[in-house]
């Protein structure tokens, strides 16, 4: 019966899905990805700097006990409100993939990851009346965007001791954004128009992190990341723009008061305002610094098999970098819960998380989303 419930949840998830897409990802480079595994999402992201399947901090890879591959699916059901009205939206993403494990006979652990850096998935419709040849003509414009920036990371962690580890990662910033505008006319003398473009992104970043177990119950971590800038190329044209990417710093704390309970918190700050001048110069609205804070817990009922039906709870609060109007701030906060089920002698696991997220820039721009994620982990 429990397995049946898992499958039913998986079946129902896509229909009630919404993920990283957001109307607050229309401007700038899009809405940033969270680079968290489903386990971390279930705790509001609080465990992401201690979770080896997340790619927020390179040092967390030290927790990999063996070769592990993780694949994440995230979907959402979203109600987005702007002056044109409120619309129910849904879509599905694959925001995270990672594979890695310890390197035999060394103190090193390596990990390769693909994660979503920013997402620009949207489709906006603008009905209007324009004057053509002196006559008013009704038109309907559609602007569509799919894609975004991805982060391919190669992480290596060195374990100094049983309690301390330091990690470094190289990040290849890549990806593409397919854009499409179309216009149809009510007057059939005018032919439908469509223009397409593909923006290609390229950049390089590095990150470092340190992880230390201060006591049997307390672990801390810190990380820093610099992504330099991203070069944006439209189709085959020469490089047209460079946009500075942020330097991010963060830290987290993990407290294990009992063998079955873990609690964690983290803060991550990014100076996206460094991209402001580039974005404004290119005709955009601008960019703001962001900060993300999260706290959560994981309760394990079965100490011998912690992957079986743990209870995860958490919340997060933060700011998003790209406002829709100059000078505005976009805030995001959410609560989440999740669980998981390991099987095949813990060589495979399914994790689930459900998150309720609110994003707002002040009236009338806001949205509420149910984010539902499923992660598949395999330890061959």
């Amino acid at each position, binding site marked *: 019966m429990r397995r049946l419930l898992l499958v039913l949840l998986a079946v129902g998830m896509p229909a009630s899905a919404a993920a990283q897409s957001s109307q607050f990802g229309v401007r700038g480079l899009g809405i940033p990805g969270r680079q968290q595994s489903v386990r971390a999402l279930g705790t509001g992201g609080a465990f992401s700097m201690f979770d080896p399947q997340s790619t927020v901090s390179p040092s967390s890879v030290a927790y990999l006990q063996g070769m592990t591959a993780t694949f994440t699916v995230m979907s959402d059901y979203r109600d987005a409100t*702007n002056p044109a009205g409120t619309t129910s939206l849904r879509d599905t993403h694959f925001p995270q993939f990672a594979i890695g494990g310890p390197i035999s006979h060394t103190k090193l652990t390596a990990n390769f990851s693909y994660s979503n850096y920013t997402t620009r998935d949207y489709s906006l419709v603008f009905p209007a009346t324009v004057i053509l040849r002196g006559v008013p003509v009704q038109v309907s414009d559609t602007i569509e965007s799919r894609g975004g920036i991805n982060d391919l990371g190669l992480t290596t962690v060195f374990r100094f001791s049983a309690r301390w580890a330091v990690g470094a990662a190289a990040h290849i910033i890549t990806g593409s954004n397919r854009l499409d505008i179309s216009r149809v006319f009510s007057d059939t003398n005018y032919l439908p128009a469509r223009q397409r473009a593909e923006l290609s992104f390229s950049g390089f970043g590095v990150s470092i992190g340190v992880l230390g177990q201060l006591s049997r119950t307390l672990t801390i971590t810190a990380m820093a990341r610099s992504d330099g800038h991203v070069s944006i190329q439209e189709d085959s044209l020469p490089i047209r723009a460079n946009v500075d990417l942020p330097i991010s710093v963060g830290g987290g704390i993990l407290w294990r008061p009992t063998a079955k309970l873990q609690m964690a918190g983290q803060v991550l700050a990014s100076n996206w305002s460094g991209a402001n001048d580039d974005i404004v110069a290119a005709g955009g609205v601008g960019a703001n610094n962001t900060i993300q804070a999260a706290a959560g817990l994981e309760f394990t009922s079965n100490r011998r098999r912690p992957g079986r039906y743990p209870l995860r709870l958490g919340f997060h609060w933060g700011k998003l970098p790209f406002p829709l109007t100059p000078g505005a701030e976009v805030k995001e906060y959410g609560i989440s819960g999740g669980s998981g089920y390991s099987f095949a002698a813990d060589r495979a696991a399914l994790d689930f998380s459900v998150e309720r997220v609110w994003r707002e820039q002040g009236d009338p721009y806001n949205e509420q989303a149910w984010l539902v994620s499923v992660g598949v982990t395999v330890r061959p």
Partner: protein
Amino acid sequence: MSGAFRRRWWAALASAALLTGCSEHLTQPGQCPELCPGGIPEGREEVVTALNNQDSTFTGYTQRASGTVMLVGSGAPTAADTSYAVIVFKPRPDSISFRDTLRAYTVDSVRFSLLTGHDTATRNVRVQLYRLPSRLNANALTFAGISPFFVPANLIGGQQLPDTALGDTVRILLKGAQLDQVALAPADEGMLVVGVSITGDTPTAGKIGNDRGALPPEFLSYLKPIVANPATVAITELPAFNDYVSRQVPTVDPTLLTVGGVPSSRVLIRFPWPARLSDSATIVRATLELVPAQPTEGVRNQEGILNVQGLAADFGAKSPVEPTSLGSLLLPFNTTDTIRVEIANVVRFWQGGLRPPAVFLSIVPEVETYSRAVFRSTRSGVSPQIRINFLPRFPFSEP
């Protein structure tokens, strides 16, 4: 079923459910400028005028001998126009084979069949056949030469066409005394020559199918051999010659642009092509504007189609056309209003530079329609022009 198998089965089922359940609905109404990176598409208009002295008329593409109809009318397309058809039927033999013997015969009856099309806006349209001299020189037909024979004394017969039918097959049956008008004397050497006119309550015109069409004119004779207990023998004669003559033959003014007529005239117009309309812009409408120098000619309900085709390559008058590049318009008649033809599908070929920015104008079906138009040219002070609406390249890279 083992536990391991069950677990794998459940995992596979969950994965399949995930993958098959993916769906997307991302379309929402937007609000500009907040939700419009790059703004909204901006429409622009451009007028491209024909290059000086690069608009010309060329005549003779299709000769009247290639047509499948004969244009016959009275007072149409213009009041000065009247046209008659002339049909020379192949000789009817003076004896027929009956019961294995050639025998003389008497004519029981004859029937003429003609495929016709006509102007349904005119009432009481009649197709009339007139007897013409069998010694008519078919190689030197003139309107003045044959029009004296279109008099009541030479009337063979006629038939009124249904007012509402665009086309019909006219069958005129002659019997008894009516046969006197088609009696063949020895001097005729079996040849019957008839003239065809079309008249109505008001000036009108129509079309008569000729021997190049699917249903050529027929001269059917029902003959009775001179023998005891004769039976009726039918003999059908098809045209040996058919053509038509008109009261006036329009001339082509080289300073103007003439399209249509018999033989057919086409117009070649070359345009400049500005860089701002290169392949990065999206053309949504392009209208070729032509100003008539005189009222357009034609007949009600039988208008020809003005075709505007792009060129595959510019070799002047013999340029091949791009088959998929076409704009067309049912050419209105008796109008001096500017003629506008939508040719966005033509000019879009010009954007990549693969096709020359030039068009051929023609009226189809060539030499089978009364439609004819004479437009002003760059030499007469009013140039053909193309009014183009387009969207410039959208600034996709604006964040």
